[in-house]
């Protein structure tokens, strides 16, 4: 018994050290960003490097909001990214429902076509999408920022794979009780798929929050810029305002952190809520 215990604690320690290294590797750059956001311009690249500035400048955060329309940019990002997230969850879950529970001719072939769309890099579709959005007259509008992302083949794939794990007995039971597809989708599949829906929502939110290329190309006025695009204007042709850029990054990372923390708690807990206790 004792030997077993020491062996186990050695394994624990090794795991602990590995996790610690991983945690430091992830938190290090974040700490450096936070520290730099309080430094005066001349201290950013001093050697030897100093984490804590001798002359902290909390005013950098005030300057950030004075030099850039940050409040507007955060609002734009929230509007755009929240809409995309909601739309993706609705559209992808419906498509995934069709691919999992409806039987129709050519279903598998169509699904393969969807999977192929996953493999096309976004740079390839950039110009055609741009031409389309321009012809619709959607340049510099929320519509132009949101609607091209209302659907994601990754989301369909993710949800379909999850839906297939839902016990067919549940679907059949609902059918026997007289449920049509709408009711099965709303009251059986969606509640059971909460963890997958949550994962898709977090994924969509984070990746769209960081999306740079599309908002850059389709917005032309500062009033429509998202946070990431607005922040990039601190990188000039000849110089970069590092302290402000880092302060901006800290501000921009806030909403993502909040969504992630909230999402983790409410959605991942859904993983343990089972339907068939004894199976």
């Amino acid at each position, binding site marked *: 018994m004792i030997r077993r215990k020491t062996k186990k604690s050695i394994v624990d320690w090794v795991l602990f050290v590995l996790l610690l290294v991983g945690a430091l590797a992830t938190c290090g750059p974040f700490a450096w960003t936070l520290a730099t956001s309080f430094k005066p311009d*001349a201290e950013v*690249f001093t050697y030897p490097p100093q984490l804590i500035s001798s002359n902290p400048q909390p005013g950098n955060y005030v300057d950030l909001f004075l030099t850039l329309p940050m409040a507007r940019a955060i609002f734009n990002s929230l509007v755009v990214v929240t809409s995309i997230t909601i739309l993706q969850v609705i559209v992808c879950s419906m498509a995934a429902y069709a691919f999992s529970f409806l039987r129709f001719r050519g279903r598998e072939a169509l699904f393969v076509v969807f999977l192929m769309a996953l493999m096309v890099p976004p740079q390839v579709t950039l110009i055609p999408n741009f*031409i389309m959005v321009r012809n619709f007259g959607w340049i510099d509008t929320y519509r132009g920022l949101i609607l091209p992302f209302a659907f994601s083949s990754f989301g369909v794939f993710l949800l379909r794979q999850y839906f297939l794990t839902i016990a067919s007995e549940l679907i059949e039971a609902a059918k026997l009780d007289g449920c049509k597809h709408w009711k099965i989708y709303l009251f059986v599949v969606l509640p059971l798929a909460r963890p997958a829906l949550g994962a898709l929502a977090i994924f969509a939110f984070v990746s769209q929050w960081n999306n740079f*290329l599309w908002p850059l190309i389709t917005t032309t*006025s500062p009033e429509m810029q998202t946070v990431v695009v607005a922040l990039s*204007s601190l990188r000039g042709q*000849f110089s970069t305002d590092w302290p402000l850029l880092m302060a901006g990054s800290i501000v921009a990372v806030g909403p993502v952190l909040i969504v992630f923390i909230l999402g983790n708690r409410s959605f991942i807990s859904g993983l343990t809520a089972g339907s068939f206790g004894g199976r």
Partner: protein
Amino acid sequence: MKIISLASTLVALATPIMADTTVSFAYWGDPAELPPFERLVAEYEAANPGVTIDVQHAPWSGYWTRLDAQLAAGAGPDVFFVTNVPSYAARGALAPLDAHINASNFPINEYNQEALRPHSYDGQLYSLPRDNATLVLYYNKDAFDAANLSHPNDSWSWDELSDAAKALAVSSGGRTSRYGIVTESNNWDVWVSQNGGSIFDDGINPTTFKLDEPAAIEAIQYIGDMMNVDRSMPSYLEASQSGGTTQMFLSGQAAMSITNAARLGSYAKADFDWAIAPLPKGPQGLRSNVVGGAGFGLNSNAKDMDAAWDFLSYISGAEGQAIFASAAAPAVPAMNGNPMVQSSFSAPFAEVFLSETDNGKLTAQFPKWVDLQNLYIQPALDLVWNGEVDAATAIGSIADQVEAALAQQ
């Protein structure tokens, strides 16, 4: 309903015959560089009722991605801020300006003629330069005084510069804690022309590669030696990792810095005294500086070409140039033959910037230039900057390839 239609008829009657025109105008700039653009647009709109300027600002880092995507889609702003003009002209993205210039008597002769060369392609002018990225020597006065060295002046040549840089370099524990000087990687060609060398026989229509000739080799070796023998100048890689000319000069990690007027803003925050001197002369007394700066061009797809030209001729005319020259982050005017523009240039040490602008010399600007640099010249130069081989070997090894590429075009 009747009231509304009556009202709209009245409005239609009240506005001049010229229908409302919109000209879209795209430019880049960090927050400090934007006020002159905003002022220009406001003043033009005030002077031209019925014309709306649709402003499309993008940061430098994203500007080109957006512009290229828009142009590829057959769209894009009517008037746009642009560099690498020949490659855009060769693609047909820019409309030639000569006919507009002649028809409207635009004072093109008041521009620095050398500065116009990088903005032309195939004998036609495709954009009008806003400014010239004239280089000057910034120096930390406190560091010179502490080292008991005399300050740089207009009689300095290469020897004085490299001696001072060596004397100012401080190393501790195998690491250089202060370099004598920091320079920018894309300006190595200035040293070549200061030594009487050149990259090609003709910078616009090159037929022969001249960088392998002794005058050019000597200049490249001079830079390489400051980096690797004297260790008085950081290699370009190290400089960029340490924040470039802005950060290294500001933080006292370099006592001199050769860069353009865009630095005036950040250097104003320095906690030491600094001043500006002209670039040193070459060993034979030759002076040279860069030519080139961004310009304003006309989109060949512009809907209303005349309205677009009218706006372009305003921002690139004397009034527009004066606004840029007098901004808080001043641009060294390219229209330096106009007295009003000249007198409105309000930068500190303005006379040094203006006289150095006259030394501007074009080294290379043609559509294939960017590719030639990336494929051959830059990799060879990097070997010299890293101290791996000497300049003659590095450049000699690519001469045939560059000649062959030139013959192809």
